[in-house]
């Protein structure tokens, strides 16, 4: 989708303003650690896959997306899929929200389960790889000149606006991985070959606006790209 999350190259968003080194806590508020932990635990519950999780964040109200802290985006996605899975009831969320707003120090329910801690201790070091091997033959190789197709699909995609229609050279080839344009839209893993494409700044932003002596790499799945020549002859 052409969502507000697709930020690469947008102007006017203000200062980055990093704080001085050494003064950035891991969590800038207590609630952030709870919001973070919801992600692996709701994943464990089977509420979403990683690509679906991203798609929920992309569908946030745009002003809210830009003005909220990143873990609020996560909360939004956890709620969205918790409701879809039938684990969370919107009316009940509102009721509890009012309760904790009026009683911020009221405790959480005390219900422990060693299996949840064991899951955390297992998944963080193990991860969950998106790499797949279905034996599909790669259509492209390192060194190929390719153009990103300029389609603007409505569902989840990782084909950012700023690389659509742009031509670059394949720098790395990574084998097959889960295809977000399928998985993020609830259509299964449908693995595709992934490549890293190198674009010059001039190709992305035009000779006048581009900073000199620079490049950007962007990872694409095979359906995102076509051979550069065929795109040019079609145009």
């Amino acid at each position: 989708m052409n969502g507000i999350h697709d930020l690469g190259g947008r102007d006017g968003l203000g200062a980055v303003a990093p704080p001085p080194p050494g003064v950035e806590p891991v969590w800038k508020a207590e609630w952030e650690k709870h919001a973070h932990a919801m992600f692996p635990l709701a994943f464990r519950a089977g509420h979403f896959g990683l690509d679906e999780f991203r798609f929920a964040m992309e569908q946030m109200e745009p002003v809210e997306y830009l003005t909220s802290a990143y873990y609020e985006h996560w909360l939004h996605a956890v709620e969205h899929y918790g409701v879809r899975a039938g684990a969370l009831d919107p009316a009940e969320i509102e009721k509890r929200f009012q309760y904790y707003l009026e009683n911020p120090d009221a405790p959480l329910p005390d219900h422990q389960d060693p299996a949840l801690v064991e899951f955390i201790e297992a998944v963080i070091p193990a991860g969950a790889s998106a790499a797949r091997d279905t034996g599909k033959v790669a259509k492209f190789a390192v060194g190929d000149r390719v153009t990103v197709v300029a389609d603007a699909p409505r569902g989840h995609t990782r084909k950012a606006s700023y690389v659509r229609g742009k031509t670059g050279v394949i720098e790395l080839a990574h084998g097959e991985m889960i295809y977000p344009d399928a998985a993020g839209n609830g259509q299964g893993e449908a693995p595709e070959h992934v490549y890293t494409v190198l674009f010059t700044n001039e190709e992305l932003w035009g000779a006048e606006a581009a900073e000199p002596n620079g490049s950007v790499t962007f990872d694409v799945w095979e359906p995102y790209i076509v051979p550069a020549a065929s795109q040019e002859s079609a145009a």
Partner: protein
Amino acid sequence: MTVPHTVAAAATPEHQAEVAARVKAVEALMIEKGLMSTEAVDRVAEIYENEVGPQLGAKVVAKAWTDPEFKARLLENATVACAELGIGGLQGEEMVAVEDTDDVHHVIVCTLCSCYPWPVLGLPPNWYKQPAYRARIVREPRKVLREEFGYAVPDTTEVRVWDSSSELRYWVLPQRPAGTEDWSAEQLEALVTRDSMVGVGAPKAA
């Protein structure tokens, strides 16, 4: 220092109180369903506060600076090389280390969300996740590095920005500081900063 205007609204006490209450509401319901527990939250927090952070990336970089064969393996397959040191996992299942040289300086970003190599760098700082960095670092990286991070890259050095749009997780192998020829890996670790592995700063000087 100016606060980025895109996050100013999130910083008010009223908004923070509302978010905290909403998180607590969802957590309470998940606990009652048996999907979440305060002990599991505490364990996640402890891991990313004390166990998994940029000190692990620093260990990998210092080893690469002192062990040419390890460095070759790291650049060939960072996931496999890091696993030799017991480093890897969530959000670093497929890692790629990119080497800074006099000819090219690397920077990482995720313009579409906030992908970041957790096993070597821990959780990302806030600025990495916020709109300004994600929008600008691909369009005007030299300016952002110079004006926002005080890091001037020579005109003769290419700036290459890696947008982490897939599940590959890129991070930077910075250049070894001058004057450290006889330093041990343990001494060198202390020079490797998180920012130098993101590409928005240099390692500390010797």
